[in-house]
């Protein structure tokens, strides 16, 4: 069972450290290595994508409660492409093709508007492989902060 070793508080850096610990000497950990027990409260901000034969055919295997789309009754099997706009999950999964291509963890932050509010987010997607070569799953995490009005806009790097 892997655990967070450092005192790092940023979600994406904690997830990246866990991924490093899970993979050990291997290039990638496998999807079976990722256990909710290792992630504690962070698990609610995580998602797992099953990579399809073509990236656009990829689908969610798991989406944590913190990122769940309200209209979705069932998450497993939902196409990533069907993820609604103006949601953190949409932005956090938007660069999954780049992760498949580069075969390394990628962290991206940004902001987007919803109604009168602005949401600032920070996300990470990490490759997983069952055979150590083919990236067949992606492990992701994201968190966000709601910023109302013009003042006090947080940088995506500040989100923990």
């Amino acid at each position: 069972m892997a655990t967070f070793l450092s005192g790092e508080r940023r979600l994406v850096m904690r997830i990246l450290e866990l991924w490093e610990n899970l993979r050990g000497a291997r290039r990638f950990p496998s999807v079976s290595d990722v256990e909710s027990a290792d992630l504690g409260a962070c698990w609610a901000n995580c998602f797992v994508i099953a990579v399809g034969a073509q990236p656009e055919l990829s689908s969610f295997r798991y989406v944590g409660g913190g990122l769940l789309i309200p209209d979705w009754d069932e998450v497993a099997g939902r196409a990533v492409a069907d993820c609604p706009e103006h949601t953190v999950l949409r932005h956090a999964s938007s660069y999954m093709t780049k992760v498949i291509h580069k075969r390394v963890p990628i962290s991206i932050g940004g902001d987007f508007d919803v109604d009168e509010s602005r949401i600032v987010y920070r996300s990470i997607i990490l490759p997983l492989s069952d055979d150590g070569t083919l990236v067949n799953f992606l492990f992701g995490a994201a968190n966000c902060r709601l910023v109302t009005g013009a003042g006090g806009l947080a940088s995506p790097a500040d989100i923990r």
Partner: protein
Amino acid sequence: MATLIAYEVHTYEHGSWQIASLFDDRELALIEARRLEEGLRHRETRVVEETHDEESGRTKSKVIYSSPKIRTAESAAAQATQTAQPAKPGTPAAVRKHRRTRRRRSAVAEKQPSLMVIGLTFFLIVGFGIAALIALQHFSNLG
């Protein structure tokens, strides 16, 4: 058209640099590079800033961080290169080197005996030899 900046964290493994992770944030990339080098594997790391100009299509790469181990090795290599390089003509270093060379050459020349001295010594030895033979012959005739 925008300029895109990405930060690549590299680790040195099996004799070459490998991309370990990618960030759009400089601070996070630096944190990750330092975390990796402090980790159990004690890896050498660096952070490369990739600036992509969408208008021109050009990408510039710049190393913005490298492990202390790498910095030490690089400065030692740079010093070695500087020592090996010849000084440019006219520079103070070149003038000093020229003077040193001239002094060394004259000192060597002073230590070596000239041909004239050798010749004189030869003729003196031969002259003394002939004089000694004549003297011996003269004294034997007297006896």
